[in-house]
């Protein structure tokens, strides 16, 4: 699949935003964070909502006819994209009631608890829907996997945790954020490695099943057009296999290994600069990871354009 930069931006930014907000709210509700204040609530919450909003704006950029975007809430019952949209919009009032409750009462009231739980649920559910948009497509074997939504959830939580650490530092006594970050990075990295191994397996469709000639060799002679059209541009993206190992390794290093190293250094030295570098590396790594998620995805329509398998 041809990676669209707006979609990469959208999923990485809003994933980090939902992850950050969910961890922040959970920590406040469980009493693990210090009493809500500027650095411990307003600033990280502002960054989270900023990232989510930035992501949602980016996501409308890849629509060819954005004036109809408001209609996307219509098919909540069948479409994961519609569900994602509905939940993403419900998220704002929930988060506003939560933050407003804190602002008014300054402490955890039942209103704050209820809206906080709703915020966490809606944020994680939105991430899950994003993953399911891809996982529900039978046409793309590399996406049609339970690991797809798992990866989206874990990478969102992981990037949220690293951002939280960079914003509040290691100042929370009840929970040591550097260790939480390392734990989440470890789990997310394992799930991503499992994904890389899983997509190495061939799928059941081939040029034979696509053309109905299951008992003979089939070769494409002519695509029937002289210049690439929509199908070629959207679905046929050829990643040079020689670069694949290098790109995957780079993504793993930037997204997981380098951030853990810098967080380790931060835990030892207390230098804030390390967490900033960790965030920068992680975001670059996640953008590359998301790019690979598209570049490695092989839609079955490729079979009609001459590929023997997907």
């Amino acid at each position, binding site marked *: *699949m041809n990676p669209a930069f707006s979609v990469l931006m959208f999923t990485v930014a809003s994933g980090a935003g939902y992850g950050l907000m969910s961890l922040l709210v959970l920590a406040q509700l469980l009493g693990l964070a210090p009493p809500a204040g500027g650095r411990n609530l307003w600033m990280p919450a502002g960054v989270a909502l900023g990232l989510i909003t930035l992501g949602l704006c980016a996501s409308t950029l*890849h*629509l*060819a*006819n*954005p*004036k*109809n*975007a408001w*209609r*996307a*809430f*219509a*098919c909540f019952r*069948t*479409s*994961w*994209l*519609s569900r994602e*949209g509905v939940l993403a919009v419900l998220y704002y009032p929930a988060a506003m009631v939560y933050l407003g409750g804190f602002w008014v009462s300054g402490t955890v009231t039942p209103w704050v608890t209820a809206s906080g739980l709703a915020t966490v649920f809606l944020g994680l559910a939105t991430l899950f829907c994003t993953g399911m*948009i891809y996982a*529900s*497509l*039978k*046409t*793309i074997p590399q996406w049609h996997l339970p690991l797809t939504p798992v990866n989206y959830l874990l990478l969102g939580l992981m990037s949220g945790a690293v951002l939280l650490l960079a914003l509040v530092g290691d100042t929370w006594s009840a929970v040591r954020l550097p260790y939480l970050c390392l734990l989440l990075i470890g789990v997310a990295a394992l799930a991503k490695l499992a994904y890389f191994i899983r997509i190495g397996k061939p799928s*059941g*469709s081939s*040029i034979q*099943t*696509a*053309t*109905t*000639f299951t008992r*003979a*060799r*089939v*070769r*494409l*002679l*002519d*695509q*029937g*057009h*002289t*210049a*690439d*059209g*929509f*199908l070629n541009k*959207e*679905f046929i993206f050829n990643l040079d296999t020689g670069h694949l190992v290098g790109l995957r390794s780079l993504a793993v290093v930037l997204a997981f290994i380098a951030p853990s190293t810098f967080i380790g250094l931060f835990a030892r030295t207390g230098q804030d600069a390390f967490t900033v570098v960790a965030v920068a590396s992680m975001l670059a790594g996640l953008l590359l990871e998301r790019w690979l998620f598209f570049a490695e995805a092989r*839609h*079955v*329509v490729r*079979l*009609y*354009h001459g590929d023997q398998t997907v």
Partner: protein
Amino acid sequence: MKLGLVIDLDTCVGCHACATACKQWNTSGTIGPLADVEPYGKQPSGTWLNRIRTYEVGDTPASKTVHMPMSCLHCEDAACVTVCPTGASYKRDEDGIVLVDQDKCMGCNLCAWACPYGARELDAEQGTMKKCTLCIDRIYDEHLPAAERQPACVITCPTHSRLFGDFDDPDSTVSQVTRARGGRDLMPELGYRPTNKYLPPRSGKAVAAVKKNSLLTSVKDWVNKVISR
């Protein structure tokens, strides 16, 4: 009703007349126009609802060239419809035709991603999704003579490789020919249950490959030919 097409891979000669007729009819039809990009430039491309690809099946000398026209197969389990967030994509209950409401589509491409058969193309100019309508604006048009109430591709095909009809009616031509010739589904393993069926080529004799002759046998053959005259 379950309307759809039967396409005969035995007789299709890959002339692209069906695709051209489709483009001509539909560019001014209900979902038109079907925009072109750089139509007079170096790399002309555009929106087509039907594309013909050509394959070689089997190995020489027992090989066959097969032309495969593909448009929307009006699947019974059409994931292109369920993934659509706006409700622009829908499948009609009365005849099973899958359509895109151009006034609702937001151009997100998700339905094209969900279609295994490459049957949907985003119109680069209009920003909306285009696909085969089974010429819904012909087949029900009572101003047309009854014989012309068929999709443009079917009327046009010079080799009669395309048949249109109701698969719910066991006595319709499409049902009969599908039974008789063993009409097949494309990529049945994905479970979309396409309505359109493809008839396999009839198996013929393999054409003998050209013999490589030595000088001696060539001379002998020539002598034999001369003598027999």
